[in-house]
Protein backbone atom coordinates (compact mmCIF):
# COMPACT_ATOMS: atom_id res chain seq x y z
CA UNK A 1 0.00 0.00 0.00
CA UNK A 2 1.07 3.58 -0.60
CA UNK A 3 2.73 5.55 2.18
CA UNK A 4 1.86 8.98 0.82
CA UNK A 5 -0.84 10.13 -1.60
CA UNK A 6 -1.43 13.57 -3.10
CA UNK A 7 -5.05 14.65 -3.50
CA UNK A 8 -5.36 16.82 -6.62
CA UNK A 9 -8.61 18.43 -5.65
CA UNK A 10 -10.30 20.71 -3.11
CA UNK A 11 -13.58 20.95 -1.19
CA UNK A 12 -15.58 18.06 0.17
CA UNK A 13 -14.14 15.41 -2.14
CA UNK A 14 -10.56 16.20 -1.11
CA UNK A 15 -11.64 15.95 2.52
CA UNK A 16 -13.43 12.66 1.78
CA UNK A 17 -10.31 11.14 0.24
CA UNK A 18 -8.08 12.40 3.05
CA UNK A 19 -10.33 10.79 5.63
CA UNK A 20 -9.86 7.45 3.87
CA UNK A 21 -6.10 8.03 3.75
CA UNK A 22 -5.96 8.80 7.45
CA UNK A 23 -7.94 5.68 8.30
CA UNK A 24 -5.51 3.66 6.21
CA UNK A 25 -2.50 5.35 7.90
CA UNK A 26 -1.38 6.85 4.59
CA UNK A 27 0.02 10.39 4.67
CA UNK A 28 -2.14 12.87 2.75
CA UNK A 29 -0.86 15.78 0.68
CA UNK A 30 -3.11 18.70 -0.18
CA UNK A 31 -2.52 21.12 -3.01
CA UNK A 32 -4.05 24.58 -2.80
CA UNK A 33 -4.48 27.72 -4.78
CA UNK A 34 -3.77 31.19 -3.43
CA UNK A 35 -7.32 31.63 -2.09
CA UNK A 36 -7.44 28.18 -0.50
CA UNK A 37 -4.72 28.47 2.15
CA UNK A 38 -7.48 28.40 4.77
CA UNK A 39 -9.63 25.79 3.06
CA UNK A 40 -10.80 22.71 4.94
CA UNK A 41 -8.90 20.29 2.71
CA UNK A 42 -5.64 22.01 3.71
CA UNK A 43 -6.62 21.86 7.37
CA UNK A 44 -7.21 18.11 7.07
CA UNK A 45 -3.94 17.29 5.32
CA UNK A 46 -0.62 16.02 6.65
CA UNK A 47 1.21 18.05 4.03
CA UNK A 48 0.15 20.94 1.83
CA UNK A 49 1.71 22.53 -1.22
CA UNK A 50 0.77 25.79 -2.90
CA UNK A 51 0.26 25.45 -6.64
CA UNK A 52 -0.69 28.89 -7.87
CA UNK A 53 -3.41 31.38 -8.63
CA UNK A 54 -7.05 31.36 -7.69
CA UNK A 55 -8.25 30.56 -11.21
CA UNK A 56 -8.41 26.79 -11.71
CA UNK A 57 -6.45 27.23 -14.91
CA UNK A 58 -3.55 28.52 -12.82
CA UNK A 59 -3.70 25.84 -10.13
CA UNK A 60 -6.06 22.84 -9.92
CA UNK A 61 -6.00 22.32 -13.70
CA UNK A 62 -2.22 22.61 -13.95
CA UNK A 63 -1.03 19.02 -14.47
CA UNK A 64 2.60 20.14 -14.47
CA UNK A 65 2.41 21.87 -11.08
CA UNK A 66 0.52 19.02 -9.48
CA UNK A 67 2.97 16.41 -10.68
CA UNK A 68 5.87 18.58 -9.57
CA UNK A 69 4.26 18.86 -6.13
CA UNK A 70 3.83 15.09 -5.88
CA UNK A 71 7.45 14.51 -6.84
CA UNK A 72 8.69 17.20 -4.46
CA UNK A 73 7.02 15.67 -1.41
CA UNK A 74 7.64 12.04 -2.32
CA UNK A 75 4.01 11.05 -2.90
CA UNK A 76 3.63 7.76 -4.72
CA UNK A 77 0.17 8.28 -6.12
CA UNK A 78 -2.35 10.97 -7.01
CA UNK A 79 -6.07 10.84 -6.32
CA UNK A 80 -7.83 13.22 -8.71
CA UNK A 81 -11.28 13.30 -7.05
CA UNK A 82 -13.96 14.37 -9.54
CA UNK A 83 -13.90 17.34 -11.91
CA UNK A 84 -10.61 19.17 -12.56
CA UNK A 85 -8.11 16.66 -14.00
CA UNK A 86 -10.00 13.51 -13.03
CA UNK A 87 -11.09 12.58 -16.56
CA UNK A 88 -8.07 13.96 -18.36
CA UNK A 89 -6.35 11.11 -20.16
CA UNK A 90 -3.21 13.17 -20.75
CA UNK A 91 -2.88 13.81 -17.02
CA UNK A 92 -3.32 10.13 -16.21
CA UNK A 93 -0.61 9.30 -18.75
CA UNK A 94 1.68 12.01 -17.43
CA UNK A 95 1.38 10.60 -13.90
CA UNK A 96 2.52 7.20 -15.11
CA UNK A 97 5.37 8.73 -17.13
CA UNK A 98 6.47 10.59 -14.02
CA UNK A 99 6.58 7.38 -12.01
CA UNK A 100 3.38 8.15 -10.11
CA UNK A 101 0.27 6.02 -9.78
CA UNK A 102 -2.89 7.67 -11.09
CA UNK A 103 -5.71 6.48 -8.83
CA UNK A 104 -8.25 5.73 -11.51
CA UNK A 105 -8.49 3.90 -14.80
CA UNK A 106 -5.64 3.68 -17.35
CA UNK A 107 -5.30 6.67 -19.67
CA UNK A 108 -6.34 4.47 -22.59
CA UNK A 109 -9.70 3.69 -20.98
CA UNK A 110 -10.34 7.37 -20.22
CA UNK A 111 -9.54 8.16 -23.84
CA UNK A 112 -11.83 5.50 -25.28
CA UNK A 113 -14.72 6.49 -23.05
CA UNK A 114 -14.13 10.23 -23.31
CA UNK A 115 -15.74 10.62 -26.72
CA UNK A 116 -19.43 9.78 -26.71
CA UNK A 117 -19.29 8.25 -30.17
CA UNK A 118 -16.35 5.97 -29.42
CA UNK A 119 -17.93 5.02 -26.08
CA UNK A 120 -21.18 4.15 -27.85
CA UNK A 121 -19.31 2.06 -30.37
CA UNK A 122 -17.49 0.26 -27.61
CA UNK A 123 -20.67 -0.37 -25.63
CA UNK A 124 -22.40 -1.69 -28.74
CA UNK A 125 -19.60 -4.17 -29.37
CA UNK A 126 -19.81 -5.33 -25.75
CA UNK A 127 -23.51 -6.02 -26.20
CA UNK A 128 -24.60 -3.14 -23.98
CA UNK A 129 -27.78 -1.64 -25.40
CA UNK A 130 -27.38 1.80 -26.94
CA UNK A 131 -30.15 4.11 -28.13
CA UNK A 132 -31.00 3.68 -31.81
CA UNK A 133 -29.02 6.19 -33.87
CA UNK A 134 -25.53 6.79 -35.17
CA UNK A 135 -22.35 5.77 -33.48
CA UNK A 136 -20.44 8.28 -35.56
CA UNK A 137 -20.55 11.98 -36.17
CA UNK A 138 -23.12 12.97 -38.79
CA UNK A 139 -21.55 14.26 -42.01
CA UNK A 140 -24.47 16.60 -42.69
CA UNK A 141 -28.12 17.41 -42.04
CA UNK A 142 -29.25 15.10 -44.83
CA UNK A 143 -27.83 12.10 -43.05
CA UNK A 144 -29.53 13.26 -39.85
CA UNK A 145 -32.85 13.43 -41.68
CA UNK A 146 -32.35 9.96 -43.15
CA UNK A 147 -31.57 8.30 -39.83
CA UNK A 148 -34.34 10.16 -38.00
CA UNK A 149 -36.82 8.82 -40.52
CA UNK A 150 -35.45 5.33 -39.85
CA UNK A 151 -35.55 5.40 -36.03
CA UNK A 152 -38.61 7.64 -35.75
CA UNK A 153 -39.21 10.99 -34.02
CA UNK A 154 -38.59 12.41 -31.50
CA UNK A 155 -34.80 12.32 -31.90
CA UNK A 156 -32.00 14.15 -30.15
CA UNK A 157 -28.83 15.65 -31.62
CA UNK A 158 -25.80 15.63 -29.31
CA UNK A 159 -22.30 17.04 -29.41
CA UNK A 160 -19.81 14.16 -29.59
CA UNK A 161 -17.36 15.90 -27.28
CA UNK A 162 -20.11 17.34 -25.14
CA UNK A 163 -21.61 17.25 -21.71
CA UNK A 164 -23.76 19.40 -19.48
CA UNK A 165 -26.46 19.87 -22.08
CA UNK A 166 -24.36 21.99 -24.44
CA UNK A 167 -24.77 21.24 -28.13
CA UNK A 168 -27.96 19.26 -27.59
CA UNK A 169 -31.20 19.70 -29.55
CA UNK A 170 -34.41 17.70 -29.28
CA UNK A 171 -36.29 17.44 -32.57
CA UNK A 172 -39.97 16.51 -32.77
CA UNK A 173 -40.71 16.90 -36.50
CA UNK A 174 -38.80 16.44 -39.74
CA UNK A 175 -39.19 20.08 -40.77
CA UNK A 176 -37.07 21.17 -37.76
CA UNK A 177 -34.13 18.84 -38.24
CA UNK A 178 -32.02 20.96 -40.53
CA UNK A 179 -32.06 24.02 -38.27
CA UNK A 180 -31.47 21.86 -35.21
CA UNK A 181 -28.44 20.23 -36.81
CA UNK A 182 -27.01 23.66 -37.65
CA UNK A 183 -27.59 24.98 -34.12
CA UNK A 184 -26.21 21.91 -32.37
CA UNK A 185 -23.07 21.88 -34.54
CA UNK A 186 -22.26 25.54 -34.04
CA UNK A 187 -22.92 25.32 -30.28
CA UNK A 188 -20.70 22.23 -30.12
CA UNK A 189 -17.99 24.09 -32.03
CA UNK A 190 -18.22 27.08 -29.67
CA UNK A 191 -18.36 25.02 -26.48
CA UNK A 192 -15.98 22.16 -27.19
CA UNK A 193 -14.08 23.33 -30.31
CA UNK A 194 -15.46 20.24 -32.01
CA UNK A 195 -18.51 20.56 -34.21
CA UNK A 196 -19.19 16.80 -34.39
CA UNK A 197 -22.79 15.92 -33.67
CA UNK A 198 -24.52 12.54 -33.60
CA UNK A 199 -28.16 11.54 -33.49
CA UNK A 200 -30.15 9.31 -31.16
CA UNK A 201 -33.69 8.25 -30.58
CA UNK A 202 -35.08 10.59 -27.95
CA UNK A 203 -36.25 8.64 -24.92
CA UNK A 204 -39.48 10.14 -23.58
CA UNK A 205 -39.55 10.81 -19.83
CA UNK A 206 -36.40 8.77 -19.28
CA UNK A 207 -34.91 7.97 -15.92
CA UNK A 208 -31.22 8.52 -15.35
CA UNK A 209 -30.04 5.31 -13.71
CA UNK A 210 -26.35 4.58 -13.32
CA UNK A 211 -24.39 1.52 -12.27
CA UNK A 212 -21.36 1.70 -10.00
CA UNK A 213 -18.63 -0.67 -11.11
CA UNK A 214 -15.40 -1.57 -9.38
CA UNK A 215 -12.66 -3.64 -10.98
CA UNK A 216 -9.12 -4.61 -10.16
CA UNK A 217 -6.02 -4.92 -12.33
CA UNK A 218 -6.59 -8.64 -12.74
CA UNK A 219 -9.80 -8.43 -14.74
CA UNK A 220 -12.15 -9.00 -11.81
CA UNK A 221 -14.99 -6.51 -11.91
CA UNK A 222 -18.26 -6.23 -9.99
CA UNK A 223 -21.24 -3.87 -9.97
CA UNK A 224 -22.48 -2.33 -6.75
CA UNK A 225 -26.11 -1.74 -7.55
CA UNK A 226 -27.53 1.35 -9.14
CA UNK A 227 -28.20 4.98 -8.33
CA UNK A 228 -31.08 6.99 -9.65
CA UNK A 229 -30.19 10.58 -10.51
CA UNK A 230 -33.25 11.67 -12.45
CA UNK A 231 -33.77 14.81 -10.38
CA UNK A 232 -31.73 17.25 -12.42
CA UNK A 233 -31.65 20.98 -13.05
CA UNK A 234 -30.08 22.01 -16.33
CA UNK A 235 -28.65 18.50 -16.72
CA UNK A 236 -26.96 18.75 -13.31
CA UNK A 237 -27.89 16.17 -10.69
CA UNK A 238 -29.52 17.67 -7.62
CA UNK A 239 -30.82 14.70 -5.61
CA UNK A 240 -29.43 11.19 -5.98
CA UNK A 241 -30.61 7.98 -4.41
CA UNK A 242 -29.87 4.31 -4.21
CA UNK A 243 -31.47 1.99 -4.97
CA UNK A 244 -33.60 3.35 -7.80
CA UNK A 245 -37.35 3.42 -7.06
CA UNK A 246 -37.85 2.11 -10.59
CA UNK A 247 -35.51 -0.82 -10.16
CA UNK A 248 -37.01 -1.56 -6.78
CA UNK A 249 -40.20 -2.29 -8.72
CA UNK A 250 -38.37 -4.17 -11.47
CA UNK A 251 -35.63 -5.96 -9.53
CA UNK A 252 -34.67 -8.18 -12.48
CA UNK A 253 -33.27 -5.05 -14.18
CA UNK A 254 -30.48 -4.65 -11.63
CA UNK A 255 -28.65 -7.74 -12.75
CA UNK A 256 -29.26 -6.97 -16.41
CA UNK A 257 -28.00 -3.41 -16.17
CA UNK A 258 -25.18 -4.40 -13.85
CA UNK A 259 -23.90 -7.03 -16.24
CA UNK A 260 -24.28 -4.69 -19.21
CA UNK A 261 -22.27 -2.06 -17.33
CA UNK A 262 -19.49 -4.49 -16.43
CA UNK A 263 -19.35 -5.73 -20.04
CA UNK A 264 -18.95 -2.19 -21.38
CA UNK A 265 -16.32 -1.28 -18.79
CA UNK A 266 -14.31 -4.44 -19.39
CA UNK A 267 -14.46 -3.83 -23.13
CA UNK A 268 -12.74 -0.49 -22.52
CA UNK A 269 -10.04 -2.12 -20.40
CA UNK A 270 -11.44 -0.31 -17.38
CA UNK A 271 -9.87 -0.62 -13.91
CA UNK A 272 -10.84 0.99 -10.58
CA UNK A 273 -14.16 2.67 -9.70
CA UNK A 274 -16.34 3.93 -12.51
CA UNK A 275 -19.94 4.62 -13.36
CA UNK A 276 -21.93 3.57 -16.39
CA UNK A 277 -24.86 5.88 -17.00
CA UNK A 278 -28.05 4.62 -18.60
CA UNK A 279 -31.35 6.10 -19.64
CA UNK A 280 -34.29 3.83 -18.89
CA UNK A 281 -37.73 4.28 -20.39
CA UNK A 282 -41.02 3.52 -18.72
CA UNK A 283 -41.14 -0.02 -20.08
CA UNK A 284 -37.81 -0.96 -18.54
CA UNK A 285 -35.80 -0.71 -21.75
CA UNK A 286 -32.44 0.86 -20.98
CA UNK A 287 -29.72 2.44 -23.08
CA UNK A 288 -26.06 3.20 -22.54
CA UNK A 289 -25.54 6.94 -22.12
CA UNK A 290 -21.89 7.34 -21.16
CA UNK A 291 -19.29 6.18 -18.70
CA UNK A 292 -17.84 8.44 -16.02
CA UNK A 293 -14.25 7.37 -15.54
CA UNK A 294 -13.85 8.58 -11.96
CA UNK A 295 -15.42 8.63 -8.52
CA UNK A 296 -18.86 10.27 -8.71
CA UNK A 297 -20.10 13.09 -6.50
CA UNK A 298 -22.95 10.79 -5.48
CA UNK A 299 -20.82 7.77 -4.53
CA UNK A 300 -21.88 7.96 -0.83
CA UNK A 301 -25.38 6.64 -1.49
CA UNK A 302 -23.87 3.46 -2.91
CA UNK A 303 -21.52 3.21 0.07
CA UNK A 304 -24.48 3.57 2.44
CA UNK A 305 -26.57 0.76 0.94
CA UNK A 306 -23.77 -1.69 0.12
CA UNK A 307 -21.46 -1.03 3.07
CA UNK A 308 -18.51 -0.91 0.65
CA UNK A 309 -16.02 1.95 1.03
CA UNK A 310 -15.35 2.93 -2.58
CA UNK A 311 -12.46 5.29 -1.87
CA UNK A 312 -10.58 2.70 0.16
CA UNK A 313 -11.06 0.21 -2.66
CA UNK A 314 -9.84 2.77 -5.17
CA UNK A 315 -6.63 3.03 -3.17
CA UNK A 316 -6.22 -0.71 -2.74
CA UNK A 317 -6.86 -1.42 -6.40
CA UNK A 318 -4.50 1.34 -7.55
CA UNK A 319 -1.78 -0.08 -5.32
CA UNK A 320 -2.16 -3.44 -7.05
CA UNK A 321 -4.30 -5.33 -4.55
CA UNK A 322 -6.93 -7.70 -5.90
CA UNK A 323 -10.60 -6.91 -5.34
CA UNK A 324 -11.67 -9.54 -2.82
CA UNK A 325 -15.40 -8.79 -3.01
CA UNK A 326 -17.25 -11.21 -5.27
CA UNK A 327 -20.46 -10.25 -7.03
CA UNK A 328 -22.44 -12.54 -4.74
CA UNK A 329 -21.03 -10.76 -1.69
CA UNK A 330 -22.71 -7.52 -2.72
CA UNK A 331 -25.98 -6.96 -0.94
CA UNK A 332 -28.21 -3.95 -0.67
CA UNK A 333 -29.64 -2.78 2.64
CA UNK A 334 -32.15 0.03 3.04
CA UNK A 335 -32.28 3.26 1.11
CA UNK A 336 -29.93 6.25 0.84
CA UNK A 337 -30.56 9.71 -0.56
CA UNK A 338 -28.21 12.63 -1.09
CA UNK A 339 -28.76 16.39 -1.34
CA UNK A 340 -26.03 18.60 -2.74
CA UNK A 341 -26.01 21.74 -0.63
CA UNK A 342 -24.87 24.61 -2.84
CA UNK A 343 -23.94 28.22 -2.25
CA UNK A 344 -26.68 29.52 -4.51
CA UNK A 345 -29.90 31.46 -4.29
CA UNK A 346 -32.91 29.52 -5.55
CA UNK A 347 -35.03 32.66 -5.21
CA UNK A 348 -32.83 34.47 -7.72
CA UNK A 349 -32.55 31.89 -10.45
CA UNK A 350 -29.99 29.82 -8.54
CA UNK A 351 -27.35 32.53 -8.83
CA UNK A 352 -24.11 31.68 -7.04
CA UNK A 353 -23.80 32.97 -3.50
CA UNK A 354 -20.17 32.94 -2.39
CA UNK A 355 -19.16 34.73 0.81
CA UNK A 356 -18.38 34.17 4.47
CA UNK A 357 -20.14 31.39 6.34
CA UNK A 358 -21.06 33.35 9.46
CA UNK A 359 -22.82 30.50 11.23
CA UNK A 360 -23.05 26.78 10.62
CA UNK A 361 -25.43 24.27 12.20
CA UNK A 362 -24.99 20.69 11.07
CA UNK A 363 -27.27 17.70 11.59
CA UNK A 364 -26.42 14.48 13.39
CA UNK A 365 -28.01 11.37 14.83
CA UNK A 366 -28.80 8.03 13.25
CA UNK A 367 -28.46 7.49 9.52
CA UNK A 368 -27.00 10.89 8.69
CA UNK A 369 -23.76 11.24 6.78
CA UNK A 370 -22.19 14.60 6.18
CA UNK A 371 -19.45 15.12 3.61
CA UNK A 372 -18.54 18.74 4.14
CA UNK A 373 -15.87 20.95 2.63
CA UNK A 374 -16.59 24.04 4.72
CA UNK A 375 -16.49 25.41 8.26
CA UNK A 376 -17.86 28.36 10.17
CA UNK A 377 -15.94 31.54 9.53
CA UNK A 378 -14.59 30.37 6.18
CA UNK A 379 -15.18 32.53 3.13
CA UNK A 380 -16.50 30.48 0.22
CA UNK A 381 -14.40 31.67 -2.73
CA UNK A 382 -16.09 32.75 -5.94
CA UNK A 383 -13.66 30.93 -8.19
CA UNK A 384 -14.94 27.36 -7.82
CA UNK A 385 -17.92 25.07 -7.88
CA UNK A 386 -20.67 26.09 -5.41
CA UNK A 387 -20.93 22.62 -3.78
CA UNK A 388 -20.47 23.09 -0.02
CA UNK A 389 -21.72 19.96 1.68
CA UNK A 390 -23.27 16.66 0.69
CA UNK A 391 -25.97 15.59 3.09
CA UNK A 392 -26.83 11.90 2.90
CA UNK A 393 -29.57 10.08 4.79
CA UNK A 394 -29.84 6.34 5.08
CA UNK A 395 -32.86 4.49 6.47
CA UNK A 396 -34.65 1.15 6.18
CA UNK A 397 -37.10 2.28 3.52
CA UNK A 398 -37.42 5.08 0.98
CA UNK A 399 -40.15 6.94 2.94
CA UNK A 400 -37.98 6.67 6.06
CA UNK A 401 -34.96 7.99 4.17
CA UNK A 402 -36.95 10.96 2.86
CA UNK A 403 -38.27 11.73 6.36
CA UNK A 404 -34.75 11.51 7.77
CA UNK A 405 -33.35 13.76 5.05
CA UNK A 406 -36.08 16.32 5.78
CA UNK A 407 -35.29 16.16 9.47
CA UNK A 408 -31.58 16.59 8.78
CA UNK A 409 -32.18 19.50 6.39
CA UNK A 410 -34.28 21.20 9.06
CA UNK A 411 -31.37 20.86 11.48
CA UNK A 412 -28.95 22.37 8.98
CA UNK A 413 -28.20 26.07 8.67
CA UNK A 414 -25.51 27.78 6.66
CA UNK A 415 -25.58 31.44 7.61
CA UNK A 416 -24.16 34.44 5.81
CA UNK A 417 -24.76 33.07 2.31
CA UNK A 418 -27.77 31.69 0.48
CA UNK A 419 -28.23 27.96 -0.04
CA UNK A 420 -30.71 25.54 -1.58
CA UNK A 421 -31.80 23.93 1.72
CA UNK A 422 -35.38 25.20 1.52
CA UNK A 423 -35.58 24.23 -2.16
CA UNK A 424 -34.77 20.64 -1.15
CA UNK A 425 -37.43 20.67 1.56
CA UNK A 426 -39.96 21.73 -1.06
CA UNK A 427 -38.88 19.00 -3.49
CA UNK A 428 -38.92 16.27 -0.84
CA UNK A 429 -42.46 17.28 0.13
CA UNK A 430 -43.73 16.76 -3.43
CA UNK A 431 -46.18 13.87 -3.84
CA UNK A 432 -44.70 12.66 -7.14
CA UNK A 433 -41.22 12.73 -5.67
CA UNK A 434 -42.43 10.73 -2.70
CA UNK A 435 -44.10 8.25 -5.04
CA UNK A 436 -40.79 7.81 -6.87
CA UNK A 437 -42.33 8.99 -10.16
CA UNK A 438 -39.12 10.44 -11.51
CA UNK A 439 -37.72 11.28 -14.91
CA UNK A 440 -35.05 13.66 -16.11
CA UNK A 441 -37.62 16.37 -16.74
CA UNK A 442 -39.04 15.97 -13.24
CA UNK A 443 -37.74 19.27 -11.88
CA UNK A 444 -38.82 21.29 -14.91
CA UNK A 445 -42.37 20.10 -14.33
CA UNK A 446 -42.06 20.50 -10.60
CA UNK A 447 -41.06 24.17 -10.80
CA UNK A 448 -44.43 24.86 -12.40
CA UNK A 449 -46.40 23.25 -9.58
CA UNK A 450 -44.00 24.16 -6.78
CA UNK A 451 -45.73 24.88 -3.51
CA UNK A 452 -43.84 27.26 -1.26
CA UNK A 453 -44.11 26.62 2.44
CA UNK A 454 -46.77 28.70 4.16
CA UNK A 455 -45.99 29.82 7.66
CA UNK A 456 -48.73 29.97 10.27
CA UNK A 457 -49.56 33.33 11.81
CA UNK A 458 -47.98 32.14 15.03
CA UNK A 459 -44.79 31.22 13.19
CA UNK A 460 -44.69 34.65 11.58
CA UNK A 461 -45.31 36.36 14.91
CA UNK A 462 -42.45 34.41 16.47
CA UNK A 463 -40.20 35.30 13.54
CA UNK A 464 -41.02 38.97 13.92
CA UNK A 465 -40.45 38.71 17.63
CA UNK A 466 -37.00 37.24 17.17
CA UNK A 467 -36.05 39.74 14.46
CA UNK A 468 -37.09 42.62 16.69
CA UNK A 469 -35.00 41.35 19.55
CA UNK A 470 -32.08 40.83 17.20
CA UNK A 471 -32.53 44.37 15.88
CA UNK A 472 -32.46 45.76 19.38
CA UNK A 473 -29.29 43.82 20.00
CA UNK A 474 -30.62 42.58 23.28
CA UNK A 475 -29.09 39.43 24.59
CA UNK A 476 -32.03 38.05 26.51
CA UNK A 477 -35.58 39.18 26.97
CA UNK A 478 -38.05 37.19 28.93
CA UNK A 479 -41.40 37.79 30.52
CA UNK A 480 -40.94 34.95 32.99
CA UNK A 481 -37.30 35.06 33.99
CA UNK A 482 -35.71 31.64 33.44
CA UNK A 483 -33.40 30.47 36.18
CA UNK A 484 -29.70 30.19 35.48
CA UNK A 485 -27.42 27.49 36.75
CA UNK A 486 -26.47 28.46 40.27
CA UNK A 487 -22.79 28.55 39.61
CA UNK A 488 -20.63 30.65 37.40
CA UNK A 489 -17.07 29.91 36.53
Amino acid at each position, binding site marked *: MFRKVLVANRGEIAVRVMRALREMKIASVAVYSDVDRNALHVRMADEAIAIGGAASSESYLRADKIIAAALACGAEAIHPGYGFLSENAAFAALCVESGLVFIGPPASAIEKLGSKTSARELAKKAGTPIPPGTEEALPNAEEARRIAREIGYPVILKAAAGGGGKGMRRVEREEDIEAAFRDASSEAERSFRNADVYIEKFIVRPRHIEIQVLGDQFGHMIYLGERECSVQRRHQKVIEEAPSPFIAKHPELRKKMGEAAVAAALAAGYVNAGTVEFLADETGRFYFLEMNTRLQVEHPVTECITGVDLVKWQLRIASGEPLTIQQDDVSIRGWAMECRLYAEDPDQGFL*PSPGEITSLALPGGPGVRLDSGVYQGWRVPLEYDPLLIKLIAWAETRPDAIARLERALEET*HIGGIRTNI*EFFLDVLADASFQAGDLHTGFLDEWFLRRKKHVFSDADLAA*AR*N*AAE*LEAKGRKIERV*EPAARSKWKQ
Partner: protein
Amino acid sequence: MSIVKVEPSVWSHLDGHRHRELRVESDADGYVVTLRGRQTKVKIEDPRAWSATGAGKAGSGVAKVLTPMPGKVVRVLVAVGAQVESGQGLVVVEAMKMQNELKSPIAGTVKQVQAVEGATVNANQVLVVVESDAS
Protein backbone atom coordinates in the same frame (compact mmCIF):
# COMPACT_ATOMS: atom_id res chain seq x y z
CA MET B 1 -43.66 33.71 26.93
CA SER B 2 -39.95 33.08 27.21
CA ILE B 3 -37.44 34.03 24.54
CA VAL B 4 -33.82 33.18 25.09
CA LYS B 5 -30.83 33.74 22.86
CA VAL B 6 -29.15 30.34 22.84
CA GLU B 7 -26.41 31.13 20.34
CA PRO B 8 -25.47 34.27 18.45
CA SER B 9 -28.56 35.20 16.40
CA VAL B 10 -30.41 32.04 17.43
CA TRP B 11 -33.52 32.48 19.55
CA SER B 12 -35.41 29.84 21.47
CA HIS B 13 -39.00 31.02 21.59
CA LEU B 14 -41.50 29.52 24.00
CA ASP B 15 -45.08 30.66 23.64
CA GLY B 16 -46.92 28.70 26.29
CA HIS B 17 -45.72 25.16 25.64
CA ARG B 18 -45.11 25.75 21.95
CA HIS B 19 -41.45 25.93 21.13
CA ARG B 20 -39.79 27.40 18.06
CA GLU B 21 -36.16 28.02 17.29
CA LEU B 22 -35.49 31.02 15.08
CA ARG B 23 -32.29 31.99 13.32
CA VAL B 24 -32.08 35.65 12.44
CA GLU B 25 -29.81 37.19 9.82
CA SER B 26 -29.84 40.73 8.55
CA ASP B 27 -30.61 41.21 4.92
CA ALA B 28 -30.46 44.15 2.51
CA ASP B 29 -33.86 45.43 3.60
CA GLY B 30 -34.56 43.85 6.97
CA TYR B 31 -34.08 40.38 8.38
CA VAL B 32 -34.30 36.83 7.14
CA VAL B 33 -35.60 34.47 9.80
CA THR B 34 -35.13 30.71 9.45
CA LEU B 35 -37.44 28.28 11.19
CA ARG B 36 -36.60 24.60 10.67
CA GLY B 37 -35.00 25.28 7.31
CA ARG B 38 -37.81 27.56 6.07
CA GLN B 39 -37.16 31.25 5.60
CA THR B 40 -39.27 34.37 5.84
CA LYS B 41 -38.37 38.03 5.52
CA VAL B 42 -39.15 40.44 8.32
CA LYS B 43 -39.07 44.21 7.95
CA ILE B 44 -38.61 46.09 11.18
CA GLU B 45 -40.45 49.39 11.41
CA ASP B 46 -37.30 51.35 12.07
CA PRO B 47 -35.93 52.64 8.81
CA ARG B 48 -32.54 53.31 10.36
CA ALA B 49 -32.12 49.61 10.99
CA TRP B 50 -31.07 49.04 7.41
CA SER B 51 -30.11 51.07 4.38
CA ALA B 52 -32.38 51.42 1.43
CA THR B 53 -30.99 49.77 -1.65
CA GLY B 54 -30.49 51.58 -4.86
CA ALA B 55 -32.38 49.03 -6.90
CA GLY B 56 -33.78 50.62 -9.99
CA LYS B 57 -37.46 50.64 -10.82
CA ALA B 58 -38.56 49.20 -14.11
CA GLY B 59 -40.19 51.33 -16.78
CA SER B 60 -38.96 54.89 -16.44
CA GLY B 61 -36.85 57.34 -14.48
CA VAL B 62 -33.34 56.44 -13.34
CA ALA B 63 -32.37 52.77 -13.08
CA LYS B 64 -29.40 51.73 -10.99
CA VAL B 65 -28.45 48.31 -12.23
CA LEU B 66 -26.77 46.24 -9.54
CA THR B 67 -25.31 42.76 -9.48
CA PRO B 68 -27.31 40.37 -7.32
CA MET B 69 -24.24 38.23 -6.69
CA PRO B 70 -20.58 38.87 -5.96
CA GLY B 71 -18.22 37.92 -8.73
CA LYS B 72 -15.86 39.03 -11.40
CA VAL B 73 -16.82 41.34 -14.26
CA VAL B 74 -16.09 39.37 -17.41
CA ARG B 75 -17.60 41.73 -20.00
CA VAL B 76 -18.82 45.32 -20.10
CA LEU B 77 -21.23 45.64 -23.00
CA VAL B 78 -22.02 49.37 -22.98
CA ALA B 79 -20.25 52.69 -22.52
CA VAL B 80 -21.42 55.99 -21.04
CA GLY B 81 -23.69 57.78 -23.47
CA ALA B 82 -24.92 54.65 -25.19
CA GLN B 83 -28.61 54.29 -25.97
CA VAL B 84 -30.03 51.03 -24.63
CA GLU B 85 -33.31 49.21 -24.97
CA SER B 86 -35.24 47.70 -22.08
CA GLY B 87 -33.89 44.19 -21.60
CA GLN B 88 -30.57 44.92 -23.29
CA GLY B 89 -27.49 43.34 -21.72
CA LEU B 90 -25.14 45.76 -19.95
CA VAL B 91 -22.54 43.80 -17.98
CA VAL B 92 -21.69 40.12 -17.52
CA VAL B 93 -20.58 39.01 -14.05
CA GLU B 94 -19.18 35.54 -13.35
CA ALA B 95 -18.96 33.60 -10.10
CA MET B 96 -18.53 29.89 -9.43
CA LYS B 97 -18.41 29.11 -13.16
CA MET B 98 -21.80 30.74 -13.73
CA GLN B 99 -22.22 33.85 -15.87
CA ASN B 100 -24.98 36.33 -15.16
CA GLU B 101 -25.89 39.03 -17.68
CA LEU B 102 -27.28 42.19 -16.12
CA LYS B 103 -29.99 43.73 -18.28
CA SER B 104 -31.33 47.25 -18.41
CA PRO B 105 -34.80 47.46 -16.85
CA ILE B 106 -35.62 50.54 -18.94
CA ALA B 107 -34.90 52.10 -22.32
CA GLY B 108 -32.68 55.18 -22.10
CA THR B 109 -29.14 56.53 -21.99
CA VAL B 110 -26.26 55.05 -20.02
CA LYS B 111 -25.19 57.69 -17.52
CA GLN B 112 -22.59 55.82 -15.50
CA VAL B 113 -20.59 52.61 -15.88
CA GLN B 114 -18.87 51.52 -12.67
CA ALA B 115 -17.72 48.13 -13.92
CA VAL B 116 -14.27 47.32 -15.26
CA GLU B 117 -13.53 44.03 -16.94
CA GLY B 118 -11.58 41.73 -14.64
CA ALA B 119 -12.60 43.57 -11.47
CA THR B 120 -14.32 41.78 -8.62
CA VAL B 121 -17.59 43.21 -7.37
CA ASN B 122 -19.75 42.70 -4.31
CA ALA B 123 -23.37 41.65 -4.17
CA ASN B 124 -25.75 44.60 -4.60
CA GLN B 125 -23.04 46.86 -5.99
CA VAL B 126 -24.33 49.34 -8.60
CA LEU B 127 -22.56 48.74 -11.90
CA VAL B 128 -24.49 50.82 -14.42
CA VAL B 129 -26.90 53.77 -14.20
CA VAL B 130 -29.39 54.22 -17.03
CA GLU B 131 -31.62 57.27 -17.33
CA SER B 132 -34.92 57.19 -19.17
CA ASP B 133 -34.98 59.64 -22.05
CA ALA B 134 -38.41 60.77 -20.93
CA SER B 135 -37.33 61.78 -17.45
